[in-house]
């Protein structure tokens, strides 16, 4: 475009116009348009962004990486054989395992102590990726606040295997989610299956 085609602007008129209080308020309101629209909608009870936590909760992804679960075999024994791969993979070094011998089950080895210090855990899920047998998976449990950091944050075998929260939140991330768990059970699931096998009335 040639220079002579440019429109001529009267700068003084523009400046005076900008100082006009009506125009000023109009500009501010235009800028607040989205905010105001949202405000009116939420005042009328439509699409509230906030929820009344903890009474209300949002559903999380099936792949959510929450507090771990140690799965069980059909007979209720611990699936974990203490191969230490999760402990080796853990970048936060929050897993402590001690192995023991089982003479008579054909598997030889079991974890006699399995502890995850959740105050150190970064919930990266490497431990679950490392587990060759889905003996360790994650749940969708995410609120693990406590007023006793020393006593409550280290989850041992008992709490990792059976705790009410596992059912409340459901299973979370594990590496092969497209397939069902094979010979690994969450506590309720296992009890349901064994009840179904034995049948009612027994």
């Amino acid at each position, binding site marked *: 475009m040639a220079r002579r085609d440019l429109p001529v602007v009267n700068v003084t008129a523009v400046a005076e116009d900008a100082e006009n209080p009506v125009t000023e308020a109009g500009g501010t309101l235009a800028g607040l348009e989205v905010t105001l629209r949202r405000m009116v909608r939420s005042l009328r009870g439509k699409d509230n962004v906030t929820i009344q936590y903890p009474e209300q909760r949002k559903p999380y992804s099936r792949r959510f990486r929450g507090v771990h679960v140690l799965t069980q075999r059909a007979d209720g024994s611990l699936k974990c054989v203490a191969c230490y791969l999760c402990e080796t993979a853990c970048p936060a070094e929050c897993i402590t395992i001690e192995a023991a011998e089982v003479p008579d089950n054909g598997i*030889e080895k079991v974890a006699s102590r399995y502890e995850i210090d959740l105050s150190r855990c970064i919930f990266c899920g490497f431990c679950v990726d490392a587990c060759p047998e889905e003996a360790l998976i994650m749940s969708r449990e995410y609120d693990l606040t406590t007023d006793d950091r020393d006593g409550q944050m280290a989850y041992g075998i008992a709490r990792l295997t059976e705790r009410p929260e596992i059912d409340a939140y459901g299973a979370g991330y594990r590496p092969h989610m497209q397939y069902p768990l094979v010979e690994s059970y969450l506590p309720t699931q296992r009890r349901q299956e064994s009840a179904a096998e034995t049948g009612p009335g027994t």
Partner: protein
Amino acid sequence: MPLVTIDEQPLEVEPGTLIIQAADRLGIEVPRFCYHPDLRPEGNCRMCLVEVKGYPRLAVACATPVVDGMIVSTPHTSALAQGAVRGVLEFLLVNHPLDCPICDQAGECSLQDFYMHPHYGLHSSEVDPSEKVRKRKAIDLGPRVVLDSERCVMCSRCVRFSAEVSGASELQFVQRGNHVELKAFEDRALADPYAGNLVDICPVGALTSKDFRFKCRVWHLEHTDSICAGCSTGCNLRIDHYRGEIQRLVPRRNPAVNRSWLCDEGRLSYRALSAAPRLTQPRVRHDGTHDDVDWEEALAAADQGLHAARTVGRPTAVAALASTSATNEALLLFKRYVASTFVAPLLDCRFGQEDRWVEEREDALLRRRDKHPNTRGAMLLDLAETPDGGLRQMLARAREGAIDAALLLYYPPLVRQEDPATLEALAALLHAVPFSVVLTTHEGAWCRGASVVLPVAAWSEEVGTYTNYAGVVQRVGQALAPPGAARSAVQVLGDLLARAGRARASTAPGALFAELVATVPTYAGLAYESLVSRAADVYPPEGRMAYGQEGFAGH
């Protein structure tokens, strides 16, 4: 001398050298299961197949001696050899169980390592796990060894060790083909006092250690090279420790001392370190009871008491006895402190008959009667000069009232129990002497009579050197920190020397060793740094752990 070319690298070797040995010297890896440098070659695993120019078929590198002009290609350069080795490994894995998560060998297993190497493994298995031949597992073979037949690759290293080296001849293969199985006769417990070596030489997880069973994963272990303190043979070993605890001891190869072997007593000697409570704080006796004090107070008390004995000035009124389990460096400072502080002291290193037993064999392989690692070193420092000196003589003199003070450096034996008579004599000596200073590692009833007890570092907690029965000087490694306030004997003796007004000796191990070389004519020419030059003899050769990494890098 024959000239051999392996993968285009020429090497001149002595006649009779095997191809695999020449390759090891060149740093070329030839995979192997059955070959072991201290066993007779058998050539049964076929993993070391190489192509030799002019030969009609592949040769086993572990049983073919080099001839002049031989041109050898390993699986790294020969497609023919590589194909054969890949086939061999695939066959060896046909019946191998998927046990790695519960197998103690995982992490140091030849099968795992070779499988992860792009030249030998990484095949996808054609065998369905349900078709594998199942064999017996977790068979109890006595106090040291657990056998898992399924994992065995039939290399026969254990059979040969048992027959050739320890002479126990307790293992044999039975059945044939798919069903071949390693067996001890009627599954009897192995009575071999060297059974622990079967676990070391097993290249897979068939023979695993009962002591180490499920204790720790091998990739967590930290390694410290050291010398066994169980007897005067001075076997080379490696301390494997994790989070401040010794997990196991394994032999290091040293053809001049122990070849690749270690006796079971030596292997388990680390247990003795935690068998009794350790001394963690210096103690001084007030009114008949011991009180914990800090080092400053304890050293001042020791110095004052010994000083009083010195100023009395009677010759031979001070008894100084240092155990031959102490390092050469500690013994040097002990001798210097005693000789420079007292007039004609009774200075000795014998609690029993160490000097007579030092060379006496207990069996044909390794064990010796003297259960102290450094008796020869103490003798070379002239700490056993008089024919009948030692603890018993000191006790006799003390009972006559001729001893004013005693200074003892004592380490409980790591192998077997201390002779009760020795402990009684020690206790009696401490009761008969007006003032006594004891440097020791563990609590014991015998040292209740001591005026001052100073806690010192035990084996595996300090560096130094031991001189074995034959005069071989070897370096001891420090794997752990001494417990509590305990300090190395070298440091404590250095502090005592400084308090006695002597120039503060440098307690750095290299500096002390240089002084030792200047003091003992036999050591002329030795240098502290070069005492660990035997890395070349370590078996398996250095760098073997690189297999897995190499395999991953190739992807």
